[in-house]
């Protein structure tokens, strides 16, 4: 899931994965690109188990970044990617799916969400339920941890492409006046949620779903006006140094989806598998449970996948049938 956000870290991973991929010999029939986030790892392993059990195909799930995965799909070195986020990866999709036609996307996507979250305490004790409440100084005073009268909120990691957009949103909605916006690694942001929950502190933070935090804690999603392209004018930092002053966004994020991608050649080499991949369907709650199992319960991804497969055999059968 984090793939939608972490474009730059994906590049770093891509380089490592490329070296791994190029330098090894695979006895397996197929290669699945495995993301470094938990729901992607779970899905990669579920596909690996399903391919083995239903198609007698051995697949290697190899961790690699999104860019190298697409390069591999294009070059025939990778066969499947379990989570391709849209619209975040639209540029890669245009290059490889639309233009080159070397990569195909499953038509079924898992709906994803991003926005602003609050702990139950912030919502119920202090009335922070809508993004408009973040501009109400009488409410955000409860979120102040440094005595300057303004609340604090984590808006994402410095490397995430979503973080500057959260800053734009804060400016446009007006709560940049009442809140100090913090950028920090996700583990720090999430540990702050853990600590706030442990002491019943109110806390507001940028968040996205599916994510394990929704099963780990009692989290409330703040309401806000729905996405409207006419009110979403984003200039990225890479495009213009004055991006912040030139951008406005007074609505929620556009709905995102993630899809399975596979090498188009699979339709010829293994048409039954391509058909199967086009039918695989997970719901968001299931993806949260996958994240929780791997990230919080620290279940081994492959063992988790085997259990999941055993418990969902009827669903898998429906995906496999000719």
């Amino acid at each position, binding site marked *: 899931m984090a793939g939608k956000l972490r474009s730059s870290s994906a590049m770093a991973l891509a380089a490592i994965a490329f070296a791994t991929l190029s330098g090894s010999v695979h006895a397996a029939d197929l290669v699945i690109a495995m993301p470094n986030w938990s729901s992607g790892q779970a899905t990669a392993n579920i596909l690996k188990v399903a391919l083995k059990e239903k198609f007698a195909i051995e697949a290697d799930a190899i961790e690699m970044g999104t860019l190298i995965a697409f390069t591999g799909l294009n070059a025939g070195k990778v066969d499947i990617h379990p989570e391709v986020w849209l619209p975040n990866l639209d540029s890669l999709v245009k290059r490889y799916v639309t233009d080159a036609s070397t990569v195909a996307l499953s038509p079924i996507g898992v709906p994803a969400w991003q926005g602003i979250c609050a702990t139950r*305490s912030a919502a119920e004790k202090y009335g922070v339920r809508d993004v408009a409440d973040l501009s109400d100084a009488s409410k955000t005073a*409860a979120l*102040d*941890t*440094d*005595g*300057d009268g303004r609340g*604090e909120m*984590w808006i994402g990691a410095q490397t995430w492409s979503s973080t500057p957009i959260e800053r734009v949103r804060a400016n446009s909605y007006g709560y940049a006046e009442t809140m*100090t*916006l*913090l*950028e*920090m*690694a996700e*583990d*720090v*942001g*999430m*540990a*702050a949620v*853990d*600590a706030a*929950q*442990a*002491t*019943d*502190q*109110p806390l507001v933070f940028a968040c996205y779903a599916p994510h*394990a*935090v929704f099963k*780990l*804690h009692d989290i409330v999603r703040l309401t806000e006006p729905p996405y409207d392209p006419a009110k979403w004018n984003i200039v990225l930092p890479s495009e213009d140094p004055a991006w912040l002053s030139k951008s406005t966004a007074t609505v929620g994020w556009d709905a995102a989806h993630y899809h399975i991608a596979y090498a188009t050649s699979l339709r010829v080499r293994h048409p039954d598998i391509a058909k199967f991949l086009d039918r695989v369907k997970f719901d968001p709650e299931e993806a949260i449970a996958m994240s929780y199992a791997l*990230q*919080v319960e*620290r279940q081994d991804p492959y063992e988790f996948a085997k259990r999941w497969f055993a418990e969902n055999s009827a669903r898998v059968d429906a995906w496999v049938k000719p």
Partner: protein
Amino acid sequence: MKRFFASPAHRGNFWRGLAARAAIVVFALGSVCSSANAVETQVYDIKTRTWVDYDRTKAYQFYVKNKQVPEPFRRQLVKFRTAEEPGTIIIDGNQHFLYLVQPNQQAIRYGIGVGREGFGWAGIVRVGRTAEWPTWTPPAEMVARDPNARKWASGQPGGPDNPLGARALYLYEGDQDTIYRIHGTPEPWTIGLSVSSGCIRMNNDDVTDLHSRVKVGAKVIVLMQGAALYKGV
């Protein structure tokens, strides 16, 4: 005791106030891990609904009277739901707590003292090395300014009067020493206050306990809360 510590329902305000209302004079940047300095802290009194002064003197008086720090700052096992692995340390300077993550969604919570400038940063580091009864070497600027520090210019041996206390955990970023430490203190009454200039202080029993449980290499997450941590963000 009630005068200074609110009921759990109000603890949020109290703890935030404890940090928020503190106004500490700190040593110059770089003089990390120095001992306590002047402090002017307030805590919220829920009976009178006012902020009352709580300084080193009052903290000391409380400690002398009770022989221990206030209950919230005492070592205790608490419920702590997290995705972090057991063995991870999470430092919440704002609330003056250090958590050592345990199995089964629990953590050992210790009271800590921090600098008004907090750690000066937030992020992820690790325990690079540890020491028992560590030597303390005052920073050069302190040696230049403070005659008491001058005599220890080449290092004060470990012992009950050493500002680093019984144990020190040295925090590294990659293979580099960050110059920040989690350490003990000869002044246990300062736990819960923001009165030093950069390091995390624990009473000697607690830092000894933490030291016995922590492995070199353990992940340490320093949270963002605390005024100085926001500077430059």
